[in-house]
């Protein structure tokens, strides 16, 4: 930890990472209220563990804390993310020609992403959405860079297949 980094400065740095953490938390918990709680827990945990931060890349460090908090919460409260509705809605006659707006398509895309298993979803969230490097994302997820790369490529394929299957 950089000794020149005051507590106030550290909290300000945490605040700048909040939007990213909230988006990642949302894709992790699949619930806006749980996501907000998870980010706050992460913030408090980070403040308490400030001295263990090596000062290199705050975002990776925070995502790592958040993932561990999420796993701990799931274990202690059995508060797994809400089950995803896997069965597809029947497509009504004439729905093939239904025009989708860009916003609707983005929502469908995010919904398809949320149906991908967590181990594959997070590399897409970190690398493709939040634009972290392979190295930073691997550090955040505590996996090897090669593993991250393989999961990311597989996840992209899974997402593409889901979209094709859903006719998007």
């Amino acid at each position, binding site marked *: 930890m950089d000794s020149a980094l005051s507590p106030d400065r550290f*909290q300000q740095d*945490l*605040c700048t990472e*909040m*939007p990213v953490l*909230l*988006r990642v938390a949302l894709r992790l918990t699949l619930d*806006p209220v749980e996501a*907000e709680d998870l*980010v*706050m827990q992460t*913030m*408090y945990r980070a*403040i*308490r563990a400030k001295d263990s931060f090596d000062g290199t890349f705050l975002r990776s460090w925070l995502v790592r804390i958040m993932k561990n908090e999420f796993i701990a919460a799931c274990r202690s409260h059995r508060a797994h993310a809400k089950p995803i509705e896997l069965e*597809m809605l029947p*497509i009504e006659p004439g*729905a*093939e*020609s*239904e*025009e*989708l*707006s*860009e*916003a609707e*398509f*983005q*929502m469908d*895309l*995010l919904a398809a*992403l949320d149906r991908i298993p967590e181990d594959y979803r997070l590399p*897409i969230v970190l*690398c*493709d*959405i*939040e*634009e972290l490097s*392979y190295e930073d994302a691997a550090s955040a997820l505590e996996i090897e860079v090669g593993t991250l*790369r393989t999961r*990311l*490529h597989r996840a*992209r*394929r899974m*997402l*593409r*297949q889901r*979209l*094709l*299957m*859903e*006719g*998007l």
Partner: protein
Amino acid sequence: MKRQKPRTERWTEKPCRFMEHFLNDALDGRCGIMSNLFVKGHLLHCVRCRRFVESIRNNIARLREARAADGSQEVVERMRRRLMDQPPPDD
């Protein structure tokens, strides 16, 4: 954008198996000079791989657009205030 009938992925929509990692690496700018040339050469004659690259690129672009329009500023502001105003609770 048209919604079509649900279906499985056709073989014509799959990229060449040996190219998938190369194509993804190229999209991420992680190919060396020789690999890049190899990918470019392959894409010149392979429609399936071109389609694959195009769809992955589109998906990434749209996910980033969705990020920009996520409308979470209000929630973030509320969390900021909580963090600044309240001390961290004890474990």
